[in-house]
């Protein structure tokens, strides 16, 4: 099974913006609740394939979509 990573954002607004951008770029991903061990925030994060992490970072950077960090999914 391919390894997965999680992109964390400051706010749900950025997660939804990123979701929209990744859909446009046809990057496989899934919006989900933030696991409590990663953040006590009540918002969303985006689960991606770890192999796509570099591509996702590039897309977020190009679109100026601020994010907190990318972590390996447990």
């Amino acid at each position, binding site marked *: 099974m391919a390894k997965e990573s999680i992109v964390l954002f400051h*706010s749900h*607004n950025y997660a*939804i*913006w990123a979701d929209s951008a990744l859909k446009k770029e046809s990057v496989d991903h899934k*919006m989900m609740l933030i696991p409590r061990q990663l953040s006590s*925030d009540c*918002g*969303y994060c985006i689960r991606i394939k770890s192999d796509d992490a570099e591509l996702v970072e590039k897309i977020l950077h190009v679109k100026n979509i601020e994010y907190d960090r990318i972590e390996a999914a447990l």
Partner: protein
Amino acid sequence: MLKNHELKSDTPVIYFDNAATSFPKPRSVIDGVVDYITNVGGNPGRSGHRLAVEAGQIVFNARQMVADLAGVANPMHVIFCANATEAINLAILGSYKPGDHVITSSMEHNSTIRPLKHLEIEQKISLSIARCSTQGLLDPEKIKLLIKPETRMVVLNHASNVTGTVQPLRDIGFFCRQRSITFIVDAAQSFGIIPLNMKADGIDLLAFSGHKGLYGPTGTGGLVLADDFYAARLRPLKFGGTGSASDKTEQPAFLPDRFESGTQNVAGLSGLSAGIAHVIAQPDGIEGIYRHKKELTACFLRRATNEIEGFTGCVPSAMIETGVVSFNLEGLDPSHVVQQLDERWSIMSRAGLHCAPLAHATIGTFPRGAIRFSFGIFNTSNEVDTAIEALKTIRGEAP
């Protein structure tokens, strides 16, 4: 006993009050509101279930569409408010510093004048009001003459809700940028009606209405921050839950959460997106709507001037850019005319000062005010003809 004319409830309504709020709304706007309430219903950012995510997507979609229309790259710089008035209050009250000198114009709506006067009365700011011409136009040189070393803010409307005239934003915006003066623009009467671009026009903060030229529901509007406007320069006026940084008791610093506490008007924003899509989809988009309103304005003023005795338009037809026509019939109370139009011909218009006493004083119609017709995308030249005949009848009945 006062005698009222029987209300013509069976007569199709002719709605000439689009500057107050546009009506009717496109069917897609109604569907957008109903779809959210019926099928989505979640609270954006507050819960992780799919209906909450979908609600967040509705809000984001509206944010992106407004950003595109304003010419800003970052959709997070769109702050949704209840209306343009709330947005102007956020811009003014959130950005002034004690001792600032602020310049505005004599054509402003009370949504701008009142928060500025409040700060002046409280001795927080000093205020200069640039006098516009009797046609409502502002000479940019007058702004330049009022500049002081402590001038920090210029607040202007893009288009007047009384005269339909448009101010030369770009000249003033460029001038403000050169001097690091915050340029705040009230686009309540122009957003979706006259093309603008915040970057090219040098606008720092743009207040817009969602329920006028964008054909969204009432309760929608907002403030757009220029891409290079640093959010910390603006203080929030309300604080509370944002669905983000929930482990912190301080207000988040990032946009748009810094200014968007409390649950958003998702139903309204769902309709707003549909309204913007409707405007863009018109033949030639905003330009096409502009031409349509220009034609109705020219048609109305040409016939009224030639055919109605004692008709006085406040501004020449060629200067009216937004389909807003204010006028008077000599010797007749504007309120009487407007009530007659409503009761006997089902024509909806507006009398009085239009919440803009300084503007009426500028064009010479204070305190009497004027009758205002404001045209929208659904109005037709046949409706204008009906209004002309109605005004001729009212005129003919006058002693």
